[in-house]
């Protein structure tokens, strides 16, 4: 038993990100209180450097740490999505932190740690690594949700998220234990090596393990019936954190689902398909139908994120590599448009937080046409209307599903996107069509938020019009070499 070879170049992005978090903590400790905003600038700069590192490793196809850590195109693409999401969140947070007088150093450090956890999950080729990555991500998020300590809603959000999250974690550990019991390894790559185990003896055992894993991941993904926490947690958490929560963990959960259920359980995906099918349908309907009756925009976006989790699950009911590629693209589009919607929300809520009623958008389109237009773009993109990114994402996903003959599922999904149009458009109605006597109050455009908003707008349009120019649709799901 020798110490395993470690490919330090391949894991450079992770090293940078982990170092970045530590650096931020260090700076925060030594900077005077009123200068700690500097950590925000360190954060975005570091994220960009790490993105370059990922880009440098583009095309690397290797496994390191005794095969536990897989650096391949799949994980690189996902890491770029995480990095993009976190970058936008850091841009969004700059003003928010100043307005609400939050601890900048700890805030950014936790965001970056959470990002680190996600990157671990994306590259994990072993269930143990995935589990620890998941915990790093989650623990940081539990704290971030309660970051506004003086706000009872934020406390509630944090506690709820923590308790339920810990519960879900229990399921994941138990699931890993069962899977290990059934196949004798935690390695995703070896899991279905026929030499390693005799499947006939322990199939049921394995399925129980898989089911438990799925419960835990469904919680992180906010899928039915483990979605109850989402609206409360989203509503109570600081808005910038809500934005982060709604994109990052979902993407990480999808990455693991893909690795575990499409790669490791690959032979059994047809048996698992009905389960994903019903999960997907129930999640879509739950999210969309409840979203209709929401009056608080954060809760509406929470239910919309549940609905989107339902769309994403279509890929697993389909279970092909093509479907997984499409869902990764879907994640990219979802990250851009969803964060965009949250950016506008951040501008609109301004300092007087707490009232995030949809009516608070009244007249926004008239007084601030750019914000109104951007929000409209994000909403119609979330609803999946061309030529926006949301449409391209749905199109590729549905295409992959139809290719596998999942026509009823696609029809249901399509009906659901129709339902979703109704509540997304309600915001548009409020912004543009209700004539008010009072003008919308002036808002400030903090420079960084503005940059992020422009990035999101451009991303939503460009990904919608030229989807394949920026995204490879033929990603292998696991590094082939050792």
């Amino acid at each position: 038993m020798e110490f395993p070879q470690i490919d330090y170049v391949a894991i450079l992005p992770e090293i940078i990100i982990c170092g970045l978090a530590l650096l931020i903590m260090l700076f925060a400790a030594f900077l005077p209180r009123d200068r700690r905003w500097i950590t925000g600038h360190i954060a975005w700069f570091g994220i960009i450097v790490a993105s370059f590192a990922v880009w440098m490793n583009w095309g690397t196809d290797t496994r390191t740490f005794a095969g536990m850590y897989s650096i391949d195109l799949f994980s690189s693409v996902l890491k770029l999505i995480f990095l993009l999401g976190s970058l936008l969140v850091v841009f969004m947070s700059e003003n928010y932190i100043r307005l609400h007088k939050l601890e900048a150093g700890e805030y950014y450090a936790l965001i970056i740690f959470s990002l680190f956890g996600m990157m671990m999950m994306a590259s994990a080729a072993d269930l143990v690594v995935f589990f620890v990555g998941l915990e790093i991500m989650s623990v940081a998020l539990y704290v971030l949700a309660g970051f506004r300590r003086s706000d009872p809603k934020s406390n509630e959000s944090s506690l709820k998220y923590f308790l339920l999250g810990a519960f879900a974690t229990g399921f994941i550990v138990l699931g890993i234990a069962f899977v290990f019991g059934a196949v004798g390894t935690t390695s995703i790559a070896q899991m279905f090596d026929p030499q390693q185990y005799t499947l006939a003896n322990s199939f049921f055992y394995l399925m129980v393990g898989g089911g438990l894993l799925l419960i835990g991941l469904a919680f992180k993904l906010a899928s039915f019936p483990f979605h109850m926490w989402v609206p409360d947690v989203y509503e109570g958490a600081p808005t910038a954190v809500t934005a982060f929560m709604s994109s990052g963990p979902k993407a990480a959960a999808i990455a693991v689902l893909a690795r575990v259920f499409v790669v490791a359980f690959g032979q059994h995906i047809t048996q698992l398909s009905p389960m994903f099918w019903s999960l997907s349908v129930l999640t879509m309907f739950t999210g969309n139908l409840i979203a209709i009756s929401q009056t608080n925009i954060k809760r509406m976006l929470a239910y919309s994120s549940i609905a989107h989790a339902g769309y994403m699950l279509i890929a697993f009911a389909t279970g092909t590599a093509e479907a997984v590629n499409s869902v990764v693209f879907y994640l990219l589009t979802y990250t851009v448009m969803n964060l965009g919607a949250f950016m506008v929300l951040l501008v609109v809520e301004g300092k007087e937080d707490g009232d995030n009623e949809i009516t608070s958008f009244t007249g926004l389109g008239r007084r601030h046409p750019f914000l109104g237009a951007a929000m409209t773009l994000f909403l119609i993109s979330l609803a999946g209307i061309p030529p926006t990114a949301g449409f391209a994402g749905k199109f590729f996903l549905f295409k992959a599903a139809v290719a596998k003959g999942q026509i009823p599922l696609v029809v249901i999904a399509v009906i659901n996107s129709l339902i979703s149009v109704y509540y997304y458009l309600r915001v548009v109605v409020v912004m543009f069509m209700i004539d008010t006597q009072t003008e919308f109050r002036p808002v400030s455009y903090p420079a960084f938020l503005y940059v992020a908003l422009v990035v999101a707008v451009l991303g939503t349009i460009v990904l919608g019009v030229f989807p394949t120019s920026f995204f490879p649709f033929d990603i292998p799901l696991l590094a082939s070499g050792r």
Partner: protein
Amino acid sequence: MLSETASLVFWVIAFVTIISAIFVVSLRNIFHSALFLVLCLFSVAGVFVLLDAEFLAGVQVLIYVGGVAILMIFAVMLTSRMTNSEVRQQNEQKALGALVAFSFLLIVTGAILKTMSVKGGFGLSPSPSVTISTPHAIGRLLLTNFVLPFELVSVLLLVALIGAVVLAKKDGD
């Protein structure tokens, strides 16, 4: 297979585990509940010893008995109101909860029995031939093949530490 004596010991331990677990969730005095939790966790450590997993038994005692349970007892004792008060351990959803717990038990038992009844059982050998002691083997593994999760756990602890500080410190510190 276990020997006669070991088998007897197992049944005793298992009995103690289950009885104490039932007490944990049914006693009205929360302090007594916590004490029975200690007993329950101890017995689980005993099961681990029987299975030749000395390291796991040690960890079980150190972390669960020594750490978690003791912390709980501390918390109960420090909140004086709770030490002697009687609390209801049940709520209106107990029937539903029992149903879920019971069906989970059924599934797990079913999985185990189904696997056992198949000829050959697990693909793994039932008792791996261990030439060195388990702590030694685990230690080696943690520093070779499992070095990545091992290192990652330290990051996880750091994050938890930061989180605890953020949430617990006074405003303005």
